[in-house]
C-alpha cells in the first residue's frame, strides 16, 4: 500500500531530465524508509484489536493460485479463529531484486523502522540478523530448560510460554545452533522458530533413465562413482539427453554444498576458543568435493561411440531442459510435509520421478543441506502487546495445529499421496500412507536425518556468493580437464585457500594484527587525502561563488538593510538543503568511522572501514566495472544524441517527425524502461532481441547473463531512453547558431565535416561539456538500473561501485563500509565537480550571440 504509493511517485519523477531524476530518485531512495514510516504512523488503530504485519502466512491476492498459498491461507484462518483480536497483515514489499539483493527491501525497511513485526528468517540470514540485533530474543516466551510437565509441577506454567518438549518437537537437533545463540551471559537465547523444512535430494527423471537403458529403481547412483558413471550413461546430446544439471557460475557454490557436507567439510565453523566464525571449506574433504564436482561439470571422457566429451550435464541455465524432461538428474529440495512441493517436480508423477538421497561420498557419508524457513520477531516491534501477538502468531504457524491444517488442506486438494507419511499418521490420515511412494518416504526420512543447515555465521550471505568463485576459476582455467589428480588437487587447494582467506576477511573480518596495522596506516593516509580533497573542494567552490568584496564596505547594518528580503526568501530553500543534504552528509561522515548498527549501539572503529574497503578485491573490481560503465555511457549515452542532433539539424525535411520518433521513448518511465528491456534481453530463443537476431541469422545471445555482454546490455536501455531528450537539448542549442555563420563558412570553403567541427560543435561546446559531466557523474553513481537489470552479475561483471555501496549497506548491512566507499567515490568525482562548478559559475544565463 504505502510502498506502492511511493513507487508511483517514482514513476512520476521519471519524466524529469535524466540527471535530475537520478538525483531526485537517489534522494527518494534515501528518504523512502522515513516516508513509509510516517505513513504507517498516521494509520490509526482499533484499541482492542491488535494488528501485526508479517512476511508470511498473510492473506495475499495470489495465495489461491498455489497449493502452498491455499495451505497458508488455511493456517491464517485457523489463527484468526483462535485469536480473533489479532489481525495479521501482509507486507507488500513486493520489489523483487536479483540474487543476494533480494533481501535488501526487507533490510531497508528495518533500517527505516517500517519492517513487519514478524519477519522471515532462514539459517543463512540468521547470523547477520542476530549480529545486527534485528531479532528480538524470544527469552520471555521460550523456556528451554524444563518441560511443560515440569513447569506445571513446579507451579510456574504459563500457557504463553513454549517449553522444552514443544521446542524439541519443532526444532530439529541440527539447527538448534542456528535458531539460538549463546549470549554474553552464557545463556542460550532463541531468535526464531522454524515453520517448514526442506532438504536437498537427488531427483531422477525415470523416463530418461529408461531411455538410457537404466532401471531407475535399481540403477540410480548410490555413490559418487556411480553418479559419474550413471550420468555418463545418460549424457547423449545427440539424443537430446543430458546426465545432470549442475551450477557452473554464481550458483556453483550453492549447488555443490551437499558434496562438501558429505566429505565432512564444515564450511563455516565457530571457533571454540575465540568464539569467532571461521570459514573452513579449504579442508581436505572440501578439496576432494570440489574436484569431484568440477569433474562432473567438465571432465573429459569418451562415450561408447568414441566421441570426446566434457562433463556429464548442463549448467543451471538449462532448467527449461529439465522441465521438458530431457535431463536425468538434478539436486532439488523436497519438503517435510508435501514432499514434491518444489515447482520443478510438483507436476511429475511417482512413475516419472525418483527421489533418492545424495550419493554417498568416499568418506562413506551422505549429508545433504537442510533449508529452514522460520519466523522471528523484528526488533522494531517494541510495543509489548504487539510483541505478544507476534509471538502467538509465529508460535502458531509452526505448531502441530497449524501443521494439521496444512495437511488437511493438502489432503482435501488431492495431494495425499505426496505427503510425508509421518505427518499423515500424526494428523489422522493413516489411510493414505500406503499410497505414498516408499522411495520418496525413505529418502525424506534419510535426508532429514543426514543433513546440515546452510552456514549460519555472521555475514553468511557473502558465503554463497564467494564460495562459487574458486569453482568458477577452476572452470575457466580448465582444471577438470587436467588428467593428473595431484595437479588438480593442489591448484584447487590454492584457490580454496585464497577464497577462505578472503571470506574470513570480508565476511568475518578476520585479519592478522600486523596486516591490520599496515592496512590502518594506508587507510588513514587515504582517508586524510579524501578529507583534504573535500576541504579543498569546498574552499574552491566558496572562492568561486563569493564574488569579491564589494559589500564589505557596507557594514553589516547596511548589508542587512539591503538584502534582508532576498535572504528571507532564500531561507526556506537554504534550510531544506541544510536539513536534507548537509545534515545527512555530516551524519554520514561520522558513520564511516563506526561499525554501524541500525538497531542497538554502534562502536567507533577508526579507519577500519576504509581499510576494509581498500583491501577488498571486490571494491577494486567494482572500480574497474565503473570505469567500463563510464566508458560505455560515454560511447552510447553521451555521444549519440550529439551525433543525432547534428544530423537532424542538417535534415531539411521531416525533422519534426524524426524528433518525435526519437523522443517517444523518453515518455516511458525509467523503471519501466529497465523492466521492458530486461524482457527484451530474454536469453532464450523466444527473447525479443534474439528473435530480431534470428532474422539476421545470428544465434541467440545471453545478453545480461553473458559476462562480456552484460555491461553493454545495461547501457543500451539508457541510450535508448536518453537519446531523444539529449538530442532535443542539443537541437535547441543548434537553433541558436546564427545562419550566417554557416554561410560565411560555406564561402570560406567549409564542407560538411569542417562546418560541424569548426562552427557547430564549438557553439554548443559549453552544453556538451555540461552534459558530459552530468553523464559522467550519473554513470559513476549509477546503481538503481544495474540493480534492476543484473544486480551486479553475472560473476560481478556489472558490479559497479554504486552497487557495491548498495550491497554494503542493505545486503551485508555494513553501513560504515558502504559510507566509506561512498566517500571514496565522492573523492573520484571531486575533479569533475570542480570543473562543473567552474562552468556554472561562469554561465550568465543569457542567450548571447556575437
Amino acid at each position: 500500500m504505502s510502498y506502492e504509493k511511493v513507487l508511483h511517485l517514482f514513476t512520476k519523477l521519471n519524466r524529469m531530465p535524466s540527471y535530475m531524476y537520478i538525483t531526485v530518485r537517489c534522494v527518494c531512495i534515501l528518504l523512502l524508509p522515513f516516508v513509509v514510516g510516517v505513513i504507517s504512523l498516521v494509520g490509526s488503530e482499533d484499541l482492542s484489536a491488535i494488528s501485526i504485519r508479517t512476511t508470511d502466512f498473510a492473506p495475499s491476492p495470489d495465495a489461491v493460485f498455489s497449493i502452498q498459498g491455499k495451505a497458508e491461507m488455511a493456517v491464517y484462518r485457523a489463527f484468526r479463529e483462535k485469536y480473533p483480536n489479532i489481525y495479521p497483515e501482509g507486507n507488500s514489499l513486493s520489489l523483487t531484486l536479483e540474487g543476494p539483493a533480494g533481501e535488501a527491501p526487507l533490510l531497508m525497511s528495518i533500517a527505516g523502522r517500517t519492517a513487519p513485526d514478524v519477519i522471515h528468517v532462514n539459517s543463512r540470514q540468521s547470523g547477520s540478523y542476530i549480529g545486527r540485533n534485528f531479532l528480538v530474543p524470544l527469552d520471555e516466551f521460550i523456556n528451554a530448560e524444563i518441560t511443560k510437565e515440569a513447569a506445571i509441577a513446579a507451579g510456574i506454567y504459563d500457557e504463553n510460554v513454549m517449553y522444552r518438549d514443544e521446542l524439541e518437537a519443532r526444532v530439529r537437533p541440527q539447527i538448534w545452533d542456528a535458531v539460538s545463540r549463546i549470549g554474553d551471559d552464557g545463556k542460550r537465547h532463541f531468535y526464531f522458530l522454524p515453520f517448514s523444512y526442506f532438504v536437498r535430494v537427488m531427483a531422477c527423471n525415470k523416463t530418461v533413465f529408461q531411455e538410457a537403458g537404466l532401471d531407475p529403481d535399481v540403477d540410480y547412483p548410490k555413490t559418487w562413482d556411480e553418479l559419474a558413471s550413471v550420468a555418463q550413461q545418460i549424457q547423449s546430446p545427440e539424443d537430446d539427453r543430458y546426465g545432470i544439471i549442475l551450477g557452473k557460475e554464481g550458483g556453483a557454490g550453492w549447488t555443490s554444498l551437499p558434496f562438501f557436507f558429505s566429505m565432512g567439510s564444515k564450511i563455516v565453523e565457530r571457533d571454540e576458543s575465540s568464539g569467532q566464525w571461521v570459514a573452513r571449506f579449504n579442508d581436505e574433504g572440501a578439496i576432494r568435493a570440489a574436484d569431484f564436482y568440477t569433474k562432473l561439470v567438465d571432465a573429459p571422457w569418451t562415450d561408447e561411440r568414441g566421441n570426446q566429451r566434457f562433463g556429464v550435464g548442463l549448467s543451471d541455465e538449462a532448467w527449461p531442459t529439465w522441465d521438458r524432461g530431457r535431463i536425468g538428474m538434478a539436486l532439488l529440495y523436497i519438503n517435510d510435509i508435501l514432499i514434491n512441493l518444489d515447482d520443478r517436480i510438483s507436476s511429475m508423477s511417482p512413475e516419472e520421478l525418483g527421489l533418492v538421497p545424495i550419493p554417498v561420498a568416499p568418506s562413506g557419508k551422505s549429508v545433504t543441506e537442510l533449508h529452514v524457513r522460520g519466523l522471528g520477531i523484528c526488533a522494531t516491534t517494541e510495543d509489548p502487546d504487539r510483541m505478544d501477538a507476534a509471538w502467538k502468531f509465529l508460535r502458531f504457524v509452526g505448531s502441530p495445529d497449524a501443521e494439521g491444517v496444512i495437511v488437511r488442506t493438502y489432503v482435501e486438494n488431492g495431494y495425499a499421496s505426496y505427503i510425508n507419511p509421518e505427518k499423515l499418521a500424526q494428523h489422522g490420515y493413516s489411510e493414505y500412507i500406503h499410497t505414498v511412494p516408499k522411495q520418496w518416504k525413505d529418502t525424506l526420512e534419510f535426508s532429514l536425518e543426514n543433513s546440515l543447515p546452510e552456514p549460519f555465521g555472521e555475514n553468511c550471505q557473502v558465503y554463497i556468493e564467494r564460495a562459487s568463485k574458486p569453482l568458477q576459476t577452476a572452470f575457466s582455467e580448465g582444471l577438470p580437464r587436467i588428467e593428473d589428480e595431484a595437479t588438480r588437487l593442489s591448484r584447487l587447494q590454492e584457490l580454496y585457500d585464497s577464497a577462505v582467506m578472503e571470506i574470513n576477511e570480508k565476511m568475518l573480518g578476520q585479519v592478522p594484527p600486523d596486516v591490520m596495522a599496515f592496512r590502518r596506516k594506508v587507510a588513514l593516509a587515504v582517508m586524510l587525502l579524501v578529507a583534504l580533497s573535500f576541504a579543498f573542494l569546498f574552499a574552491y567552490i566558496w572562492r568561486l561563488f563569493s564574488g569579491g568584496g564589494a559589500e564589505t564596505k557596507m557594514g553589516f547594518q547596511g548589508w542587512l538593510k539591503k538584502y534582508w528580503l532576498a535572504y528571507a526568501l532564500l531561507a526556506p530553500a537554504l534550510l531544506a538543503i541544510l536539513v536534507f543534504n548537509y545534515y545527512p552528509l555530516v551524519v554520514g561522515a561520522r558513520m564511516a568511522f563506526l561499525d554501524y548498527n541500525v538497531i542497538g549501539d554502534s562502536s567507533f572503529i577508526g579507519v577500519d572501514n576504509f581499510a576494509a574497503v581498500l583491501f577488498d578485491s571486490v571494491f577494486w573490481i567494482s572500480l574497474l566495472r565503473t570505469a567500463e560503465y563510464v566508458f560505455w555511457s560515454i560511447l552510447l549515452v553521451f555521444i549519440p544524441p550529439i551525433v543525432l542532433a547534428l544530423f537532424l539539424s542538417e535534415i531539411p525535411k521531416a525533422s519534426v517527425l524524426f524528433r518525435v520518433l526519437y523522443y517517444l521513448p523518453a515518455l516511458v518511465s525509467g523503471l519501466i524502461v529497465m523492466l521492458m528491456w530486461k524482457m527484451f534481453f530474454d536469453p532464450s530463443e523466444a527473447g525479443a532481441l534474439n528473435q530480431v537476431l534470428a532474422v539476421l541469422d545470428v544465434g541467440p545471445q545471453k545478453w545480461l547473463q553473458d559476462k562480456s555482454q552484460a555491461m553493454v546490455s545495461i547501457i543500451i536501455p539508457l541510450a535508448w531512453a536518453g537519446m531523444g531528450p539529449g538530442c532535443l537539448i542539443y537541437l535547441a542549442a543548434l537553433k541558436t547558431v546564427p545562419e550566417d555563420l554557416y554561410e560565411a563558412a560555406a564561402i570560406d570553403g567549409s564542407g560538411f565535416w569542417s562546418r560541424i567541427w569548426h562552427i557547430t560543435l564549438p557553439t554548443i561546446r559549453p552544453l556538451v561539456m555540461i552534459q558530459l559531466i552530468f553523464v559522467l557523474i550519473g554513470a559513476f553513481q549509477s546503481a538503481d538500473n544495474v540493480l534492476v537489470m543484473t544486480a551486479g552479475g553475472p560473476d560481478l561483471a556489472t558490479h559497479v561501485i554504486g552497487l557495491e555501496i548498495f550491497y554494503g549497506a542493505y545486503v551485508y548491512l555494513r553501513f560504515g563500509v558502504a559510507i566509506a566507499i561512498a566517500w571514496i567515490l565522492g573523492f573520484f568525482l571531486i575533479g569533475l565537480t570542480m570543473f562543473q562548478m567552474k562552468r556554472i559559475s561562469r554561465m550568465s544565463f543569457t542567450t548571447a550571440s556575437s
Partner: protein
Amino acid sequence: MSGVTLSNLSKTYNPGSKDSFHAVKGIDLEIRDKEFMVLVGPSGCGKSTTLRMIAGLEEVSSGDLRIGERRMNDVLPKNRGIAMVFQNYALYPHMSVADNMAFGLKLRKTPKSEIQNRVQEAADILGLTEMLGRRPKALSGGQRQRVALGRAIVRKPDVFLFDEPLSNLDAKMRVQMRAEIAKLHARLNATMIYVTHDQTEAMTMGDRICVMKDGKIMQVDEPIRIYQSPDNLFTAGFIGLPQMNFLKGVVEEDATGVHFVISGVQELRVKLTDQLSGIARSNRAVPLTLGIRPEHFALCTEDDPAAIPAEVEVGEPLGAESYIHLLSKSGDKLIVRLSGIIQSGVGQLLCVKPDLENAHLFNSETGQRL
C-alpha cells in the same frame, strides 16, 4: 577579367508550394570588372536575394549568372572567387581575430607563412594589428566589421559582396567605414557589389547604382545621372533627400503657350518652358506628373506665370539653407529648399516657382520619364 553578368536572373522561393514567392524577376545587369556597384531599393525588393545568388548562398531559379567568363549557377560558393561581408559580421565567435581571417585560407591549404603575411597585411590596412589575438566578443561593432572586411580581403577574391555591412553601426562610424571601404576599393582594385538601402551610401560609394523595386531593376546608372535624370517616378522618388516633389496634372495649350495644369482643390497653371512644351505636347492625352527636386524652386511673385501659391506648414531654417514644407493651393504637399535663412510663419502665404529647366515630366500611368 571578373565582371559579373546577370542575364534574366530569377529567384523563386519555395517554388510550387503555397507560399512560393517570386523575389527576383528576371533581371539583367552587367557589372564591369573592378566596378563598385551599389544595389539599392526599398526593403524586400530583392537586393539581398540577388547578392546571395551571386554568392551562391541561394540557388538560381532561372537565368544565367556569370563571373568573368564562367557560368557560376551551379558552382559552390567557395569556388566562385568571391568574398562576402555580412550585416551581422558573421564572425566565428570561438576563434581569435587572426583565426577568423585565416580560416578560409587554412581550408584552402594555403601555406602558413603566406597566411600569416596576408593576415598581417589586412590587419595593417584595417588597423587591427593590436587586436589579432582577441575574440570577436571583445571588439566594438566597428572593429568587428573591420575584421569581417579583413576576412574578405585576405582571400583576395575577384568579387567582394557586401550586404548592408554598415547598418549596425552608429552614424559616425558609418561615415568613417564608408570612406574606408571606398579607399579599399581604390586600393584593391577589385569588383565590389554593395547592397544598401541607404542612398547616401549609394550615392557616395558607387561607381554605378542599380535601383531595384519588387524584384526588378528600375535603373542602372552613375549616381549623378540617376539623380539628375531618373528614368522613372520610382527612381526619382527613391533617390534624393528630401524627396522629389511630384505634381499631378494635364497639359493644356492656349495662345500664351503650353501650360501644365495641376489638378486638385484649385487648378493651378504653370507655364512650361520650350523644352518641356515639346515633350508635353506629344503627350497631351495622358495624365502626367511633374517632378521637381526641392532645390529647384525659387520664391516669386504671385503674378509669375509659373507661380505656385502655397501655405507654409513648417519652416526649417538650417542656416545655409532652409527647408520649407508647403501645402499648395492645389492641395499638394511640397518641400522646397531655399538658400539662406527664410523666416516664415505657419499659415503664411508664399509663392514659389519651379525651375523648369531641371524639372521632369513623367507619364503618371507607366511612371516612365518622358
